[in-house]
């Protein structure tokens, strides 16, 4: 099997199919080590006003130089707010890639599909590379592809819940019909969840909480890297079909029994 199997987003090649977030780490030092262990080449950040009374540390001092920073639009509840946030980030020198999230619902943190589509169309028009975060909705996926999104990123389960591929049937349809990379984002709690998404044919996964809140985030980052690689390779290798009956792995004839 050809070992050259890059993830290609908007014409740019990445070796790693594990995108990671930077939230929820106890310290930036741990985050830095975990990012390195994950092998991630795309790393998300949020954008917030500086609190001049308590500015805290500058996260960018802890981020590897050779990763693509992916600013998100978290905290935005409308298309207008998301577009504003993305423009601010790009003007200030961050990449023109944006993880688009428009989330008006504070309880379940579910994204608004209508506002997300509106913002996506506007941002593509302004030459952003747009990676929208959505509920697994194959119809919305097609519309986002039509307006020119670079990926579509359905959630596996609610953000931070760690419950795994709760919406796998809808994600399976999205995988089947994807014309741009399909990135499963949010809700993955264990490496086995990531492997399952990759075996199913997802192009990549995005993980934050499951690594940051693990007992040992650095070891867990490595575990996710391995799971993503294993899942991808299994998908490319072709997984056997399930059968309803047992089928012996060893020859039936010549068994050592009887006289």
């Amino acid at each position, binding site marked *: 099997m050809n070992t050259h199997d890059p993830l290609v987003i908007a014409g740019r090649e990445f070796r790693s199919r594990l995108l990671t977030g930077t939230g929820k780490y106890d310290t930036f030092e741990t985050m830095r080590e975990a990012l390195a262990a994950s092998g991630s080449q795309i790393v998300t950040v949020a954008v917030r006003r500086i609190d001049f009374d308590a500015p805290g540390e*500058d996260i960018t001092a802890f981020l590897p130089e050779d990763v693509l920073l992916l600013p998100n639009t978290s905290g935005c509840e409308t298309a207008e707010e998301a577009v504003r946030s993305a423009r601010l980030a790009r003007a*200030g020198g961050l990449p023109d890639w944006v993880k688009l999230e428009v989330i008006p619902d504070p309880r379940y943190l579910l994204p608004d599909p209508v506002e997300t589509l509106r913002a996506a169309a506007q941002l593509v028009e302004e030459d952003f590379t747009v990676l929208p975060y959505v509920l697994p909705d194959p119809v919305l996926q097609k519309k986002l592809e039509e307006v020119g999104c670079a990926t579509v990123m359905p959630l596996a389960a609610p953000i931070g819940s760690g419950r795994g591929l709760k919406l796998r049937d809808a994600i399976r349809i999205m995988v089947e019909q994807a014309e741009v990379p399909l990135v499963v984002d949010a809700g993955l709690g264990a490496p086995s969840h990531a492997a399952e998404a990759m075996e199913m044919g997802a192009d990549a996964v995005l993980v934050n909480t499951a690594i940051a809140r693990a007992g040992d985030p650095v070891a867990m980052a490595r575990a996710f890297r391995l799971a993503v690689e294993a899942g991808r390779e299994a998908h490319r290798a072709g997984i056997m079909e399930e059968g309803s009956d047992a089928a012996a792995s060893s020859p039936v004839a010549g068994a050592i029994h009887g006289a």
Partner: protein
Amino acid sequence: MSGHVVVNGREQPVGRGETLAALLERLGVGARYALVERNGEPVERARYAEVRLEDGDSLVVARPVAGG
């Protein structure tokens, strides 16, 4: 003429002809990325040193933080 600008909702004095870059420096924003909106419009990083603040300007100053 000196005056005041509003930065993230709080008044700050500015000197005559003070540039955005000088204000950021004074506020201790030495980060790799300081993201600025002036009167509702994003300001290109390359222009920080040439934008001269005016009395009454309203600024949002942001930066990247941890997030997923």
